[in-house]
């Protein structure tokens, strides 16, 4: 079995807003929870320190069961720890909508089949307010059409083409695809002076 992954075309569910720019991966999952050799049980500790010091949406009963996380700019900056998106996904989140994402974080999410889409700051603001005023609203993110719908709100969303194709085609788990290129890999390696011994 070489990592056949399922397609992700549309994600629907209720939303949960987590406000703030530059939310780093240390805040998403503090380093003390990296002291594990599996990702199991990480969901419980997502945003742990923030949840202790503030009223965090993740503890707000109104957002219980939400599956679409809505964030601001540069979400997921900092370390490359996949523990951050793992914690978020293991808490039931199936898509993240934000103004912008840090690159490694977004790549990690895609590699796990968790889509990150972006929208304008104004759309995010409207969406957050809509969710806060009525958390039961159903949100739907359509990767095919690159749109987000929330009752009467229709928003265009962006996602890098490569990530979108991987999710739509179910090739976000890259291992199988990369393995298929074995022969070509050997050829490239042979031609690299530092491999052939200069």
């Amino acid at each position, binding site marked *: *079995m*070489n*990592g056949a992954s399922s397609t992700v075309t549309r994600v629907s569910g209720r939303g949960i807003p987590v406000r*703030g*720019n*530059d939310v*780093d991966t*240390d*805040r998403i999952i*503090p*380093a*003390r929870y*990296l*002291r*594990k*050799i*599996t*990702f199991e049980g990480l969901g419980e500790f997502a945003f742990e*320190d923030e949840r*202790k*010091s503030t009223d965090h949406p993740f503890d707000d009963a109104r957002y219980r069961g939400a599956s679409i996380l809505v964030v601001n*700019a*540069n979400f997921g*900056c*900092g*370390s*490359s720890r*996949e*523990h951050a*998106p793992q914690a978020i996904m293991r808490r039931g989140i199936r898509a993240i909508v934000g103004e912008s994402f*840090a*690159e*490694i974080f977004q*790549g*990690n999410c895609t*590699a*796990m089949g968790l889509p990150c889409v972006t929208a304008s700051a104004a759309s995010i603001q409207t969406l957050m307010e809509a969710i806060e005023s009525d958390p039961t609203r159903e949100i739907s993110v359509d990767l095919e059409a690159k749109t987000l719908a929330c009752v009467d709100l229709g928003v265009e969303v962006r996602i890098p*083409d*490569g*990530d979108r*194709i*991987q999710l739509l*085609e179910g*090739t976000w788990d*890259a*291992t199988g*695809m*990369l*393995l298929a*290129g*074995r022969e*070509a*890999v050997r050829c*490239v*390696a042979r031609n*690299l*002076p*530092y*491999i052939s011994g*200069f």
Partner: protein
Amino acid sequence: MGKSLFYKVWDAHAVRELPSGQTQLFIGLHLIHEVTSPQAFQMMRERSLKVAYPERTFATVDHIVPTDIRTRPLMDPMAEEMLGAIEENSREFDIPLFNLHDDRQGIVHIIGPELGLTQPGMTIACGDSHTSTHGAFGAIAFGIGTSQVRDVLATQCLAMHPLKVRRIEVTGSLTNGVYAKDVILNVIRRLGVKGGVGYAYEYAGPVIDGLSMEERMSICNMSIEGGARAGYINPDQTTFDYLADRAYSPSNGGFDRAVDWWKTMASDADAHYDDVFELDGAALEPTVTWGITPGQGVYVTERVPALRDLRDDERDVAAEAYEYMDFDAGSPIAGTPIDVAFIGSCTNGRISDLREAASVVKGHSVSANVKALVVPGSAAVRRNAESEGLHEIFREAGFEWREAGCSMCLAMNPDKLQHRQICASSSNRNFKGRQGSPTGRTLLMSPAMVAAAAVCGEVTDVRAMLT
């Protein structure tokens, strides 16, 4: 129009275009450590996969290792379990491991270059965002997540999109007391913590040309704090001199042929850049962060900025930072009392960093209320420092002299801040809670500035202490 090093290296390693439009990119060197690899090995086992090129992966232990008592089993059972996991994984998958008591052990981004594993023209990946460090040698090096660690183990390849390239030209020359750390903190201050998203940074110009390899690594190391996944410097004589006679460097005639190839990989004089940014190196002063992102830096002679001095998009985070740090807008950063001084990390845990710090500390004592520690970045750095007597200078002044590891950079081992402590730190991240206490505070600065702060008990302009 010519090519930049980024594209020369990219093209030499491109295997094929994938259906997603990404490139299948061959990875020349893969480094792993105990925190982000165990889950990847687990996935390998679940899928009955073998490591494709075990001779191109090297493992070490750095993040969770204690830096004081290192007898096995470790006192912390979780740390012992993680060590056990990487030992078992490297044995089962036939990967060399520079283990806790190996004289090659150290922070992954320090030992790669030190051993000559890191070389110009390579692609390098590691499940760690500071992999950008290796770009100092003219390699293209990036941090990856655990699923991608699995990809590299199984295939020695990554599926990636190329980056744009921004050339950052640092002009003039640095004045006394201003270091590589100050250069990069000011690049991030000017371009912002997300200014580099989508880019590789090429650092160039007279200041960069004049830096040692250690200093160049400090700069490339923090590219990621500026949002850039990779940062690099074109290889030159300084690079080649550093690499001569390292354990894994090409030897004998191979070295000269290697140098010839390395030279061809440097950016062409007429290379295309997607953007160019210039920083006046001569105007820089010792820099200290006051907030909760690495972009919130000021000169030590400046004050904590007021909201009105900041761009619109910087204000929310600034307001959050005043509150978390308990600093007032407009108050001078110099004179801020500190509780802890930390010299170490993959940014500034190299021999030149320890020499600079020791030269400040020599003949002084650590202030009575300050806990100060020096954690060399590798076992080799520690040995070098001891052969130069630096450990005596630090110890006599009241610093603790530790074994190699990440230590208080991210506090996954017992070295942690307590409660609201403020730490003058030579590391790279001042995020909330980064140094082990959910309410702890971090001020980033150069190792010489940390040394000055340790001696004075407060943030101090190191230039006043240099002769």
